[in-house]
């Protein structure tokens, strides 16, 4: 699949651009009308050639546990290592910059400015480092390739989180650097170590101009990147963030004014880089910081034109809704499916507008809710009824379905599931979407009898409200029904909302002796409240170690357990206390922190 590929959805048949000669159909469904706010619509693009995109998994250590700030930052080994390395590098660079300025005999005149110049030079070096790093987590294509090898080195799986950490550092060091320079320049003016006034340095020389300009861009970028603004109006964030282009130009040219020099006047030369390195003694950090910029620019170009393989999420653009925005969604179909589907929860302005556009807007939901209240939809659904029936949306003869452009898929290998004996899949809220794909994939592999060494799947779904169960009910029912071995797949659904008395009675009356759970309509019973992870892992560990968990496996054998967590919230960390021996713990933080906003 290719960015710029138009899947022109016309009714239930459409076409891709001829150069790819793939036929496609489009299928829109609306699920779970029970709450007007929490509904999800389901958009699937049927491609005649599903060109095996491999669903892949992210591997980081996290957990859903709430912990104190101190515990999270300092007692979790991984995070502690990150903090020590990341802030250690910055402090080292600051100290080195300070030292190299203070001890440089050539810069003796500047050193007359004392602390302020040492601070500004130290902070300047850190800023060069941060300016280089800020784009690194945005190199999506490269990260996809290097992630498995470098996951230990930097948090490649939480690229947006890392991007934010760099930005926070940058704001801090920009404050130090700017403050120091305000002192520098006023002292330059007073001592006349150079024959100029402070405002000339501020507003007529390259360093000052680009510096103030970068600060202004930072103000606009940081304020519009606030999660509240991103939710309200993704476009304000998206477009403003492209000021990064000018910011980067400012960064690369910040030192071209030859401010750090041992000559009286800047030593400009006619050839690139237009100042002599003999007398201009800055770090020349642009030689390093420019590479992530060039790579990023290259990636944007590459994504515009080239093709992808494997992945598990994709970008969607709907020109009718917004001409330029690309939004990431998790692919919920399996590689074997003859279509690509995504489930889209309407939370932000883009998703609401998209829902409205394809006919899954509030009016439709209201109508469906009304029908549900009247009970008119229950007629042929058998004794239990079904929550979350698909409702085909009739978009007025089909001609008005929007053009959907897709970019991707992106992501990392889910085939990893089949390398473990035990896969623990944990999803929360809409963060369950990747597991829809994985469970389906497992189901297909079961049919083919090619499960690899996979022996057990523990699926956890933590959800706040019952209507959400409708999202994947039919899928879960199907997967559950297909199990010959009752122990192969264990579905653990947790409902965390506070239950009203009515609902309590409803459950009590319907649950007793019923074959299926009244909430999920699965054989597995719904559990209430939050899962006790410590208890769950402990039990599992004991069962594995005593050899009861996997029949026939000796306690001495190594059992490889993969834990995958798909998570709705930005905050999730793996608690080291939960680590148990012989486990490969992978967790996966999906959601805003991973992809930079669903809106």
């Amino acid at each position, binding site marked *: 699949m290719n960015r710029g590929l138009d899947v022109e959805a016309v009714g239930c048949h459409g076409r891709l651009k001829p150069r790819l000669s793939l036929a496609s159909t489009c299928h829109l469904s609306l699920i779970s009308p029970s709450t007007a706010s929490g509904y999800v619509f389901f958009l699937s693009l049927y491609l005649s050639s599903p060109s095996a995109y491999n669903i892949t998994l992210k591997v980081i250590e996290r957990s859903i546990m709430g912990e104190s700030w101190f515990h999270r930052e300092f007692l979790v080994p991984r995070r502690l290592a990150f903090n020590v390395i990341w802030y250690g590098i910055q402090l080292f660079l600051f100290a080195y910059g300070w030292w190299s300025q203070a001890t440089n005999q050539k810069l003796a005149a500047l050193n007359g400015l004392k602390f302020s110049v040492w601070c500004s030079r130290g902070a300047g070096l850190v800023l060069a480092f941060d300016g280089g790093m800020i784009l690194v987590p945005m190199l999506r294509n490269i990260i996809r390739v290097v992630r498995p090898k470098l996951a230990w080195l930097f948090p490649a799986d939480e690229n947006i989180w890392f991007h934010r950490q760099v930005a926070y550092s940058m704001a801090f060091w920009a*404050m130090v650097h700017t*403050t120091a320079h*305000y*002192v520098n320049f*006023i002292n330059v*003016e*007073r*001592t*006349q170590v150079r*024959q100029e*006034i*402070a*405002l000339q340095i*501020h507003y007529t020389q390259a360093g000052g101009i680009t510096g*103030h300009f970068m*600060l*202004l861009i930072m*103000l606009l970028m*940081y*304020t*519009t990147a*606030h999660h*509240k*603004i991103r939710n*309200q*109006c*993704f*476009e*304000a964030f998206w477009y403003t963030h492209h000021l990064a282009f000018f910011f980067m130009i400012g960064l690369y040219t910040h030192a071209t004014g030859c401010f750090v020099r041992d000559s009286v006047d800047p030593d400009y030369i006619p050839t690139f880089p237009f100042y002599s390195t003999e007398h201009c003694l800055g770090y020349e950090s642009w030689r390093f910081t420019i590479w992530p910029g060039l790579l990023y620019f290259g990636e944007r170009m590459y994504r515009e034109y080239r093709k992808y393989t494997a992945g598990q999420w994709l970008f969607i653009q709907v020109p009718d*809704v*917004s001409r330029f925005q690309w939004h990431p969604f998790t692919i919920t179909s399996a590689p074997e499916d003859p279509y690509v589907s995504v489930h889209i929860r309407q939370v932000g*302005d*883009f998703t609401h*507008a998209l829902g409205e556009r394809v006919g899954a807007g509030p009016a439709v939901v209201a109508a469906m809710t009304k029908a549900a209240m009247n009970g008119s939809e229950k007629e042929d659904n058998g004794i239990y009824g079904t929550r979350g029936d698909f409702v085909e949306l009739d978009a007025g003869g089909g001609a008005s379905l929007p053009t959907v452009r897709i970019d991707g898929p992106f992501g990392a290998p889910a085939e990893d599931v089949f390398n473990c004996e035990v896969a623990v899949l944990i999803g929360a809220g809409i963060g369950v979407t990747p597991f829809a794909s994985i469970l389906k994939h497992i189901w297909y592999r079961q049919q083919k009898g090619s499960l690899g060494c996979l022996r057990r799947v523990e699926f956890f779904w933590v959800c706040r409200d019952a209507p959400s169960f409708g999202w994947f009910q039919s899928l879960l029912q199907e997967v559950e029904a297909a199990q010959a071995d009752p122990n192969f797949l264990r579905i653990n659904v947790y409902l965390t909302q506070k239950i009203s008395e009515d609902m309590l009675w409803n459950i009590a009356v319907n649950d007793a002796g019923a074959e299926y759970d009244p909430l999920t309509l699965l054989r597995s019973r719904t559990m209430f409240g939050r899962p006790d992870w410590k208890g769950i892992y402990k039990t599992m560990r004991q069962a594995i170690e005593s050899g009861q968990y996997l029949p026939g496996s000796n306690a001495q054998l190594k059992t490889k357990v993969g834990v995958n967590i798909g998570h709705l919230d930005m905050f999730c960390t793996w608690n080291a206390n939960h680590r148990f021996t012989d486990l490969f713990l992978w967790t996966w933080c999906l959601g805003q922190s991973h992809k930079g906003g669903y809106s």
Partner: protein
Amino acid sequence: MGNLVWHEYSRYVSLTASVYTVWASFWGLFYRKFFWDFIGGTLRNPGGLQPSPNAAIFITLIVKVPVIQIFTMMTAFFMIALEFPMPQLKQTMIHRSIVLRIVMLVLMAFMAILFYQGTNGALWSLIAAGCYARAQVLGETMEDAKNNKGKGGRA
């Protein structure tokens, strides 16, 4: 598409500008300089720029005694208290007033532009004021104002 609530966005700009201005005026207490002293000033070596006698009033208020810096800092602190908001201000009418914010921000910008460190803070305050003006033009109301509707004197 997209429904930016301008006064909610302006709040972040205003907070950033105010925090910057507090920091700038703090440094302005120690490195006192009239920003506009280059107008008619003469450069002395060493000694720096000697402002023109016409600017004497500003030299008194900024360099001799940092009155402007102190007032700017107080205004900026007030803006932070208003925007954050401080619990005591949360339910009051001034917290819900967009116009008051515009006036305060413009005032803050006017004072900040007078001393050396205040220029960025002044520019950012004007941007915040502009965004609030946009909110005002669009007829936006603060969330609390909506909540307090119909509560009469108790709001």
